[in-house]
């Protein structure tokens, strides 16, 4: 029996690829570990290695073939002592296993595929995002852009990069440091090309030493620089949280206002996909708890850019929470020389009359999806994108609740002592008499994030959860 070698998926989301080169020809003897072929996905080229030994019987897909579906038999390998006669016609078994049941729960984007390495999955993910993400329904009523400004389609990843590049051009004391930010161009490619433009003095690769380099960043800020410290993910900043809080956040106060610490700590926060409990933690409420910090969590590309630029210019320590699953999303960014979005101001993304929904980061997308569903059922939801978690823009929320008389606070993290708990309290303190129903919250289930696809899908809040909560406060169903 010959061995059929199939087009592999280099990530669970890859559906097809280009067979750029064969490294073997018919008749060659291969042993395990030999490179058989080179395959190209969107931007990455990977080698396929043989795990079997044998003689290359037949090559079934020509070099250069594009759009070869995952699972297509591309080569037949003859095992010891077999001849060409042993080649069986490859059954057209396309190996696209149906993912375990729960993997394609409602939450399409999140659960469709696993997360891979931070290294290159972004390409695949970008594609996927383009395909499945709902159109961003924003009515940016408060966005402050001069009329006639052109818009430029940009991924959130590049919007963040552009923000850093612009600020680095503007201010020589701004520099970036973190793991894999320079030569590797960023674990998630957010710092792509910064090394090329600004050189190794200003784009610094660190060893895996979060506590140490966060402290060095704080010292550099006190010493007159404006560091941007990238954490590969915020999960790893737990190694460094002492410096973020004790050294960065408290110094201005402890020094009676003398000692400044203008620093931005940034990186992806919250759950990615199928990476388990230690890599999936949403820190929003942790940092929002700390006086002396400003905490920013943008949803779209324009805010990612405008808020990051403001953060870099801000003389205070800033915690800037990005979302890995959003990096590839492509959205409009205004073409302006200097697009700044003020820290501390929420944005009404959709105007509505029946209920207020607050959310930040990726959850804003879920809330907008929910608003669409609700609109179909005759409920008009107003969506507030918090954008900054500290200082929290209570005013925008309170004004909205005074109009709608109902509120649902949605977040991806855990509920207890969460952002929603805080907002609900403020609403009760400041607009109690306007409420027609107790505030409702939507949040992650109160467990560490499980790895299994079905359990993960059950853990994370989605649009339907928001819809259900809205119906609850509207006393529907």
């Amino acid at each position, binding site marked *: 029996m010959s061995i059929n070698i199939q087009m*592999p*998926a*280099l*990530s*669970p989301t890859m559906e097809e690829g280009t067979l750029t080169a064969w490294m073997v020809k018919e008749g060659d003897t291969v042993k*395990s*570990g030999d490179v058989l072929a080179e395959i190209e996905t969107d931007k*990455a*080229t*990977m*080698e396929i290695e043989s*795990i079997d030994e044998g003689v290359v019987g037949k090559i079934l897909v020509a070099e250069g073939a594009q759009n070869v579906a995952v*699972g297509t038999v591309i080569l037949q390998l003859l095992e010891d002592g077999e001849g060409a006669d042993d080649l069986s016609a490859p059954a057209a078994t396309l*190996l*696209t*296993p149906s*993912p*375990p*049941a729960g993997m394609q729960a409602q939450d399409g984007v999140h659960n469709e*595929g*696993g*997360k*891979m*390495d931070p*290294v*290159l*999955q972004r390409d695949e993910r970008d594609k996927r995002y383009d395909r499945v993400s709902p159109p961003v329904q924003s009515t940016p009523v408060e966005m402050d852009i001069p009329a006639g400004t052109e818009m430029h389609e940009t991924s959130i990843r590049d919007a963040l990069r552009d923000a850093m590049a612009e600020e680095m051009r503007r201010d020589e004391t701004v520099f970036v440091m973190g*793991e*894999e930010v320079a*030569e*590797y161009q960023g674990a998630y490619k957010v710092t792509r090309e910064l090394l090329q433009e600004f050189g190794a003095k200003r784009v610094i*690769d660190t*060893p*895996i*030493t979060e*506590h*140490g380099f966060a402290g060095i960043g704080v010292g550099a800020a006190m010493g007159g620089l404006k560091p941007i410290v990238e954490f590969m993910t915020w*999960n*790893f900043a*737990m*190694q460094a949280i002492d410096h973020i809080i004790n050294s960065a956040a408290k110094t201005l106060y402890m020094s009676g206002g003398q000692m400044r610490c203008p620093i931005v700590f940034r990186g992806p926060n919250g759950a990615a*996909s*199928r*990476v*388990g*409990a*230690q*890599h999936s933690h949403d820190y929003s409420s942790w940092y929002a708890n700390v006086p002396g910090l400003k905490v920013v969590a943008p949803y779209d590309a324009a805010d990612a850019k405008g808020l990051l630029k403001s953060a870099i210019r801000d003389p205070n320590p800033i915690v800037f929470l990005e979302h890995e699953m959003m990096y590839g999303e492509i959205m409009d960014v205004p073409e302006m020389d200097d697009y700044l979005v003020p820290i501390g101001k929420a944005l009404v993304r959709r105007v509505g009359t029946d209920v207020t929904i607050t959310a930040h980061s990726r959850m804003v997308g879920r809330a907008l999806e929910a608003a669409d569903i609700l609109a179909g059922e005759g409920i008009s939801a107003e969506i507030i994108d918090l954008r900054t978690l500290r200082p929290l823009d209570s005013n925008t929320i309170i004004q909205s609740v005074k109009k709608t008389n109902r509120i649902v606070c949605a977040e991806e993290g855990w509920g207890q002592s969460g952002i929603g708990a805080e907002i609900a309290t403020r609403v009760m303190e400041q607009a109690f008499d306007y409420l027609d129903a107790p505030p409702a919250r939507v949040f992650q*289930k*109160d*467990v*560490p994030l*499980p*790895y*299994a*696809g*079905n*359990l993960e899908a*059950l*853990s994370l809040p989605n649009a339907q959860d928001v819809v259900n909560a809205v119906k609850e406060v509207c006393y529907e169903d």
Partner: protein
Amino acid sequence: MANIGKTTKKELLQLYREMLLIRRFEEKAGQLYGMGLIAGFCHLYIGQEAVVTGVNASLKDGDQMITSYRDHGHMLALGMDASGVMAELTGRSGGYSKGKGGSMHMFSVEKNFYGGHGIVGAQVPIGAGLGLANKYLENGKISTVFFGDGAANQGQVYETLNMAQLWKLPTLFIIENNQYAMGTSIARSTAQKDLYKRGLSFGVKGVQVDGMDVLAVRDATKKAARHARSGKGPMILEMMTYRYRGHSMSDPAKYRTREEVSEMRDEHDPIDMVKNRLLKEEWADLNALKAIDKDIKSIVGDAVEFAKTSPEPDPSELYTDVLLEVDL
């Protein structure tokens, strides 16, 4: 080729089997990832098999192991069930963590495996803590902590080395120096590259070992284990090794040349080294080796079958295992 130590037919065949099981298991895991059955991060141990196999050969029953997310090989070496490990990779209820941990997070109280840790360097003090417990309980066990060249730069490693020496903890610090931490070569992350010297200022002895040579690993570990077990405190073993694959499944590993990888694979492969010795000593012929290969393939094949057919965890499992019930 590195010098190969004293051994017997029985021992060498056993080491061969153990390493081959890891290799074949990992190759299969890579394939299942390609098929979308494994998701998230999946870090393969291919190329490094001699390290854990050689260390394990010098440990006694009850000695403990703890490591990072690159953990499949350690579990197989300790005799954990290949099916249970594979089913955890696919996130099924038959996995060691009932599907709730994934590739990076598995544990076995029975086999003295203390995990699978995702935060670089975090397992190092925990492993020393196992040593503290051993000393406290006077149980005669030693703990072995595995970590990478990248992890060796984390501050908590040095806090740990100091305490471990101060308190003479029975712990071996085993650095798997595979030359890279993700895309960063050791030369780009480390001011002083001899990682075995990292404990010197605390008085922790260290040796550098050819980590591609399972017998060299076995011998170095044997000595170090004797040192630790006899109350003299910890030691560092820097295992010089190499990972053939990318950091995790989808890393194209463009930060090193293909030549560099093939040179290691062709000239220093830990499994080939043992295979050649077995043939040279006439302890096995090609047919015998093939039979072993077939046997291993069938173990791995069964594991895959189990990992595919074991059901997903029941939704009720979402809420279990967060805290223990207390009944005082």
